[in-house]
């Protein structure tokens, strides 16, 4: 089986090349989608994941940061602080202003936080330092690259000039990137002095976050509290509901296209080698030999295609990063294995589809 399938591939170099290229492209596309998904998932929730607070307090009916508006008054800060089991509460104001640099303009997910505190700021700094004063801004690294700004450069929001003091990572949510300023600066930019979006609550030692949530919601009407884990899940679910269907649709199209291409190719190969298969039947090839050869042929195509795809993938990623820095890709081993498995399944599925043609080849054809 192996020998015949291998020689068949070898003797049709042009077809081999085209098929491998098609499979490689499909594999690359699937890998890229998965890597983008991982990148978006990480970038969307890293701010939450790495924040380190125990309870998130938002406006009632708000469940996540990504798609929702939450406004709370600054006045409730003390009420939250005075709840049993609360060690501290830190206000954060989230805005979606336009950021300008020269003629360039882009929307930034601006977080104003109490820069004197540990919580609410960028999850990780790639370069520079954190926010020290009202004239500082930390920008997401990919956003900065897109805007072609570096540390020390000046940008403006609503006419307020800010100096880029640091570049953060884990703050790229694909469709939007984070920026960080002081709470006072965010309020002045928004022109709403006494509003915040949410509070990051630290629990006192020994306090159970679940109970804390209930206590805060009871004591401060109009708020919704979430433990860190629940809030992370909410945001992931929100991100996935917007992104996963698209991802699945594109990946699904890729799989269908690949299956169609492969089964057509295998079908053509079977018809072209019809005489060989008839001769094999006459010469007493075991029952599994013919379908086995097709399966091995498809498997080899899939494996060569995957290998080519894996070779091409890093090139594609570096190219995309250069063209669109805000596209953050994270490639993981499980995703690579998933794509490999999918390509093999598609290969064997196509083989299975085209094997039906073998039934209509008769040994007697050798005498025609």
């Amino acid at each position, binding site marked *: 089986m192996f020998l015949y399938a291998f*020689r068949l591939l*070898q003797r049709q170099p042009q077809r081999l090349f085209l098929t491998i290229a098609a499979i490689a492209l499909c594999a690359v596309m699937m890998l890229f989608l998965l890597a983008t998904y991982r990148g978006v998932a990480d970038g969307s929730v890293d701010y939450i994941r790495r924040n380190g607070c125990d309870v998130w307090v938002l406006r009632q009916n708000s469940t996540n940061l990504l798609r929702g508006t939450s406004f709370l008054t600054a006045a409730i800060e003390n009420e939250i602080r005075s709840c049993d089991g609360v060690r501290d509460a830190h206000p954060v104001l989230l805005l979606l202003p336009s950021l300008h640099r020269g003629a360039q303009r882009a929307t930034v997910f601006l977080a104003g936080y109490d820069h004197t505190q540990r919580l609410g700021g960028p999850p990780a700094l790639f370069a520079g330092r954190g926010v020290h004063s009202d004239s500082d801004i930390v920008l997401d690294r990919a956003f900065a690259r897109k805007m072609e700004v570096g540390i020390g450069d000046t940008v403006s929001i609503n006419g307020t000039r800010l100096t880029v003091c640091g570049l953060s990572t884990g703050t790229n949510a694909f469709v939007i990137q984070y920026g960080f300023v002081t709470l006072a600066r965010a309020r002045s930019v928004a022109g709403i002095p006494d509003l915040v979006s949410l509070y990051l609550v630290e629990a006192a030692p020994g306090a159970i976050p679940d109970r804390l949530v209930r206590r805060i919601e009871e004591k401060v009407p109009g708020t919704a509290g979430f433990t860190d884990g629940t809030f992370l899940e909410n945001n992931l679910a929100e991100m996935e509901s917007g992104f996963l269907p698209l991802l699945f649709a594109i990946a699904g199209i890729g799989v269908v296209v690949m299956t169609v291409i492969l089964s057509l190719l295998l079908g053509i190969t079977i018809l072209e080698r019809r005489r060989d298969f008839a001769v094999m039947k*006459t010469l*007493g090839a*075991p029952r599994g030999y013919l379908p086995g050869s097709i399966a091995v042929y498809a498997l080899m195509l899939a494996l060569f295609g995957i290998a080519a795809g894996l070779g091409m993938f890093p090139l594609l990623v570096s190219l995309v990063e250069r063209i669109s820095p805000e596209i953050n890709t994270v490639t993981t081993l499980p995703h690579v294995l998933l794509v490999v498995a999918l390509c093999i399944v598609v290969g064997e599925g196509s083989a299975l589809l085209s094997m039906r043609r073998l039934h209509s080849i008769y040994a*007697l054809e050798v005498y025609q």
Partner: protein
Amino acid sequence: MRSPEATVFRMRNASRNFTHGAGVTHAVRGATLDGVSGEVLVLLGPSGSGKTTLLSMLAGLIRPTAGSVELFGHDISGLPPQALQRLRAARMGFIFQTFHLFDVLKVEENITLVQRFNRVERAPAKRRAKELMEILEIDRLAGKYPSELSHGEKQRVAIARAVANRPELLLADEPTASLEWNQGLEVVALLQRCAREFGCCVVCATHDLRMEEVAGRVLRITDGVLTGTAEGAVGAGIGSDADAEKKRAGDGGTIKKPAPQDGTGQYVRIPD
């Protein structure tokens, strides 16, 4: 070498019809024929007379519509397709007019593949292929693809492939029809050697009258009817003194152990 007179096939009153639409073609009608090992049986007949149909029945590729065909003691009507496939792989060899080599495989691989069909391990299959290529003087072609060979060379490869599994029955359909005169002669001699030295029962459907000279028996088929059995030279060299030997034996075509010599005067044994 097998026992020279073992019955390989037995055909009794076998007929084969093909229906197409309202019409019926009686391709073979009531054929009765036995084949024994070591014998060259030549089937002569005009185009459309039923030669290939008869061979196909002997191969178990089609079943008779009436009568019976027994292969190696088994009635093919009662055998499941897989058993027939096993019989073809293990006990039969095939030679075709247009060679039907696997052109994506090299010469040596063509000869090993059929042995793999017969579940021979890779190493002994390769050894056997080498041995046969040497005997058939095609060892220098081992690494070539069939498209690089002459017709005569292709048919030699096909013969090597056909005998690779040491078949008891060798079915050849017009083996010389695509060949030039000399190449045809070589093939005729080789088929004769297969019978004589390997003990195969060779059944050869042909138009080639040269085959008569090496035939143990010549059968004529017209309109599906085996019209007569003429005796030919029994298992001896082309135009050799086998006729004389047969006459001495006075047995009218019974298989005789051949003289240790082929048409070229060289004795090359095909090992079994």
